């Protein structure tokens, strides 16, 4: 299996998961597609250095790095707005659906950086240390920014976020 075949096989297996993380990071499908494509290009460039047995952590680090670079360049990421993110879903009148809509709206109003902390911590399940390494910040920054992001969610959607139980105490406090 040559490099192209290996890369294609990896993308076939993990491309969707990577794309979903990219979407959550960017909050925008077009920006997510750009981020994924940049990640793929960099992944192909570095494939010889990537551990073949388990390339995903390395590829994810590439994605996080590109995402942070994009934040710094202020071009990759759409800045938050009051509008909801672009996800098509049928409206549901149930309270769960209302809660989800409220949370979605609140997440859309976080800054990309705040959103990234939450995505890495609560979607990709990275530890604080791993999140700090991925985003190029200190662990204390991860703690403080995660706390700020959660507080902002509480402010924006108090009825929903008050029920969060998965926030570690050191972050929630």
């Amino acid at each position, binding site marked *: 299996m040559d490099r192209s075949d290996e890369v294609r096989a990896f993308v076939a297996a993990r491309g969707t998961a990577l794309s979903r993380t990219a*979407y959550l990071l960017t909050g925008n499908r077009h920006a997510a597609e750009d981020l*994924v494509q940049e990640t*793929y290009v960099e992944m192909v460039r570095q494939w010889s250095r990537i551990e073949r047995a388990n390339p995903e952590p390395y590829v994810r680090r590439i994605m996080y790095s590109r995402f942070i670079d994009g934040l710094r360049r202020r071009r990759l990421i759409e800045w938050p707005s009051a509008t909801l993110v672009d996800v098509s879903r049928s409206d549901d009148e149930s309270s769960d659906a209302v809660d989800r809509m409220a949370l979605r709206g609140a997440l859309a109003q976080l800054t990309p950086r705040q959103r990234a902390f939450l995505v890495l911590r609560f979607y990709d399940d990275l530890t604080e240390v791993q999140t700090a390494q991925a985003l190029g910040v200190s662990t204390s920054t991860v703690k403080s920014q995660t706390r700020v992001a959660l507080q902002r969610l509480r402010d924006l959607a108090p009825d929903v*976020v008050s029920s*969060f139980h998965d926030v570690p105490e050191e972050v929630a406090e």
Partner: protein
Amino acid sequence: MSPLREQFDIEADAIPALGDIDAALAQVAKEHRTWRRVGLAAVAAVAAVALLVGVRPLLGSHNPAVGPTTTVTPTPTATASPLSVGDPVVRGDSAHHRSYVVFAVRNGTDQPVVLGGFGQESNGGDVGLTPGAASVNVQILTAKAGDQMVAAPAASRYSIANSVKNWFPTGPGTLNSGGSVALVLIVSSPCTIAPTPITGATTIQVSGAGLRQDTTQTLVDFHGPTPAWLTSALRDACPS
């Protein structure tokens, strides 16, 4: 599952696989091709520049600190046998395959002129360079097949030697084992013979506007005895 994680899952579940891995592979392949072209162009440019201007610092300035240089003092003894000091080209086994290209930089000019050569062009024709000498300093760079450049001479000479090394691509017409290749540069006074091993190979490509014939000539598969014109040229180059 927490509401936050659930919300992330709900949002993300609507997202299909994004990106185009084939496009990424194609882009990287294109980058590699571009870099190869840039690299080749850079090598060619360096070789051309070194050929055209690299010998200029040698004009009128003999620096004994550069490389394994042996100076042939233009004494009557040296004149009688100007190639007897540190010159494997002339003293070597005539059965060895050899090549010689003599460049001359006329005093006051920048562009080297090929004054003579021995061997064949890549198209099989004779080199057809006219022997002759217009200056008085001799630099001889020699190499055997498989040799590595071991000296790090002064910048000017290094660039020349390096350029010559770059002119010796691997490929057809491999230099026979044990053979040697020499680049003879005739520049200005004083006479210096500097054997400088370079990577052995078979092709010398000569580029430059100063060439008498084509702007680019490739000399390949040199062999045969030391040509009389070289001895003559060297003697002319190192007058008493």
